[in-house]
């Protein structure tokens, strides 16, 4: 018997487990697969654009959050309120520090970082090692690797130059390809390269090729490939050898930055006594009235195992993470068989429409306690708290809030579940 069972090991699930563990609860995390952190960037975007049709990054985030309570009360941030947001962010910064992979920044202020296409994009928290102010660099070198097809330095550099120019900033931005001679046989992704760069000899080769191109004022922007576990060593070595600054940016999945976040967090949670059962799906639940009394886990042998707790966190990632299934006839949350209101039209003709896509906004409706609710707002379950991409009311992709909502709602769900399990 556990105090809290968390379903899902994405950022929402991991934060829920951390929050409940912080209350000294006995916690089990069950997940069928890795969360989306392995694809998404390791940056935490709280709210980049609001209302979503604005083109410029949000300046006053606190004010936007207040507006949101009025214009979009179903938004997870609006449901939870500013205080919970504050607490969740403080908590995240604190535990990541303890986990040895510190973050910096604040949800109240957007920082501007380049993307792999060279767009300047708002984000809130970045790993400490990537914390810098672009404005203070006059000279930027964007670097790609010949063996990797997931990053194009000249394209990114052109867009960056254009973006800075529009803001009236003139910088010297150059691009270069490096060839580490790693693989002629197949293309490498960022994970392969990150593993390779943990080898000192490969790192040395990189430094040799870069040496002639950089000075100590250069900011080197490159895809996030500077080591997985030995990240501190890899970047530290390079900066020592070349005396310039490195900024890793996330590119196509798999995501090395997200992986570092997920793995440090999981390691930390294990140390705190959180148990993990990974690789198996939760296939159903036992219920007495509105109370969940157990969940069914399908094990490798095909046997069904029942696990019980006082409270449960449902952080199975929505359509993206596999927690919600879309069929021609309707959308259902598969563990508790929660029916999701089917939208008339699931899509806008314009993929990039500023109002977002109904498909991305679809999810479970919850109340301020994160309990799933029915059409009249009545709770469907009293000891189950939903979080992350499972929730409706926001399109993380246009407003740039995916990890932010996962973090805040995950934390809140963990606290609520933990407290409910007194």
């Amino acid at each position: 018997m556990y105090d809290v069972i968390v379903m899902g090991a994405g950022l929402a699930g991991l934060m829920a487990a951390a929050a409940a563990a912080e209350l000294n609860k006995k916690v089990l995390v069950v997940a069928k697969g890795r969360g989306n952190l392995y694809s998404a960037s390791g940056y935490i975007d709280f709210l980049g654009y609001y209302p979503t049709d604005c083109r410029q990054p949000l300046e006053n985030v606190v004010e936007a959050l207040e507006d949101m309570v009025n214009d979009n009360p179903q938004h997870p941030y609006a449901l939870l309120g500013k205080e919970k947001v504050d607490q969740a962010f403080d908590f995240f910064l604190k535990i990541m520090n303890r986990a040895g992979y510190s973050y910096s920044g604040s949800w109240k202020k957007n920082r501007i970082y380049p993307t792999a296409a060279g767009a300047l994009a708002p984000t809130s928290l970045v790993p400490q090692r990537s914390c810098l102010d672009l404005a203070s660099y006059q000279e930027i070198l964007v670097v790609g690797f010949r063996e990797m097809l997931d990053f194009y330095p000249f394209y990114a550099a052109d867009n960056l130059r254009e973006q800075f120019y529009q803001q009236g900033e003139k910088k010297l931005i150059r691009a270069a390809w490096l060839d580490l001679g790693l693989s002629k046989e197949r293309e490498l992704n960022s994970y392969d390269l990150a593993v390779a760069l943990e080898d000192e000899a490969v790192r040395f080769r990189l430094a040799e090729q870069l040496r002639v191109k950089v000075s100590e004022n250069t900011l080197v922007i490159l895809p996030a490939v500077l080591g997985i576990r030995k990240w501190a060593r890899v970047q530290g070595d390079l900066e020592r050898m070349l005396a310039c600054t490195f900024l890793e940016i996330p590119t196509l999945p798999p995501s090395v930055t997200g992986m570092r976040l997920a793995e440090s967090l999981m390691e930390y949670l294990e140390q705190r006594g959180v148990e993990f059962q990974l690789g198996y799906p939760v296939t159903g639940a036992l219920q007495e009235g509105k109370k969940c009394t157990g969940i069914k886990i399908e094990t490798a042998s095909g046997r069904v195992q029942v696990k019980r707790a006082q409270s449960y966190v449902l952080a199975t990632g929505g359509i993206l993470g596999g927690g919600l299934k879309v069929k021609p006839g309707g959308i259902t949350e598969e563990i508790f068989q929660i029916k999701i209101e089917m939208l008339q039209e699931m899509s806008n003709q314009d993929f990039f429409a500023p109002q977002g896509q109904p498909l991305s906004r679809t999810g479970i409706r919850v109340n301020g306690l994160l309990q799933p609710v029915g059409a009249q707002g009545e709770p469907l379950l009293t000891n189950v708290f939903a979080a992350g991409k499972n929730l409706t009311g926001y399109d993380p992709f246009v407003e740039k809030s995916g990890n932010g909502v996962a973090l805040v709602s995950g934390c809140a769900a963990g606290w609520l579940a933990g407290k409910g399990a007194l």
Partner: protein
Amino acid sequence: MGDNYDVVIIGGGATGTGIVRDLAMRGLSCLLVEKEDLATGTSGRFHGLLHSGARYAVRDPHSAQECVQENRILKEIAANCLEDTGGYFIALKEDDPEYIRVWLEACRQVGVATEEISPSELLKQEPVLHKDVTKAYLVPDAAVDGFTLAAANALSAEKLGAKVKNYTRVVGFKREGQRITGVFLRNAITGQEWEVNCRLVINAAGAWAGQIGELAGVNLNIIPDKGVLIVFNHRITGKVLNRLRPPGDGDIFVPHGSVTIFGTTSRATHDPQDNQATREDVLQLLAEGRKMIPDLEEMRLIRAFAGVRPLYQASDQEGTGRQATRDFSLLDHEKLDGLNGFISVVGGKLTTYRLMAQAASDLAAQKLGNDKPCLTHLEPLANLGIERDKDKKHLCQCEMISKGMLEKAVKGKEQFSLSDIRRLTRLGMGPCQGTFCTYRAAGFYHELKNLTAQEGNKLLKEHVQERWKGARPVLWGGQAQEIEINRGIYLSLLNLDRLDSGDYV
């Protein structure tokens, strides 16, 4: 003033490109104009079946006979553009056994080779099929790629001196009394207009042929008929699969590269440009398809699209939709309407494009006093030269496309979109539908072609948008999840929605 040609051909589908090759081989000087890219009309929005003739044997024996002949010829001259899969016709319990007898006899009459195979043997080879198959026959169906077919015909013609201009629309005709003497053209991208002179114009504009007729002042009764097709993320069967019953909706599966195309429907439309598939069409097709493949609804759909059949009705008495003839018509407007220098070739099927081209070219040659015979059935089409190379670093992993292939595909192109490249190489056509390779290809071409940042962004966004159009009617199951990943990459990771690129829709 303007340039002078013997013949101007309107339409860069299979028919038009077939004609320009045929006439170029006869030594005539030709210009082909296409308002978009080659095979963006029906020749790129079709089922991809090189008919054996079996489907039409009962109701349209003449048409079936043409298919038999052309099927054999194309397997010789266009081997690079098709995959000789072979095909099955299968009858289910509910299908009329009497029809099987009639069909077999009709196939024999028109010369379609059929070979019976036992249901148990069939199920061994294609285990996904319904257990209630009562009869099954092998026929020489094949899968054909309309994009590379049109491109290879065009290239063959260009090698003989013909001019092929895409993104060039015919906006009017030059006339002297009752004679067409040239065309007015407009560049679809820059808007620039010019004119060329010619001795003869051939209207091969498919479902748009009626509109071209109108521009020339003649009446052409084209009934555009829309058909919807859906694409699954894998090869469901190794061979083409047909239902052995009178032709209807949702009864053919065609394996294509790494995917399967299933369809189709038949519905009259008013607009030849009407190529949007709807969710309802898709559900209707799935309901039919399930009868042949019971697990169909569990399989991953990746997109839906539609094409418009150029059905031609000489008089109002003839049938429409599936009843209309699949035969083609060659119209000599000098005889029909007293207008000189203008002929139209309409209707038909992609399978018989070469024959249509031959008929149109014979008439054109005769009118222009050229007595060279048609040789198109004897000589293989030009090689596009973008076959797979040894490079194992694949920019598009689904379809295994290297940088070298992309480089060859863009050679000589001044204006291009990733869709144009996709048609030549299958870039982004596989299971992930461009989720990964669109960004890669845009980054690659940005550098290769010295594009500006904006042009690179446009290339990227336009293609993401195009793939989205196909995914919208099938937003469920794995595809709904894939689209979420797609949005994660293009909006969250890259912030493309806030990056300027002019118009991309």
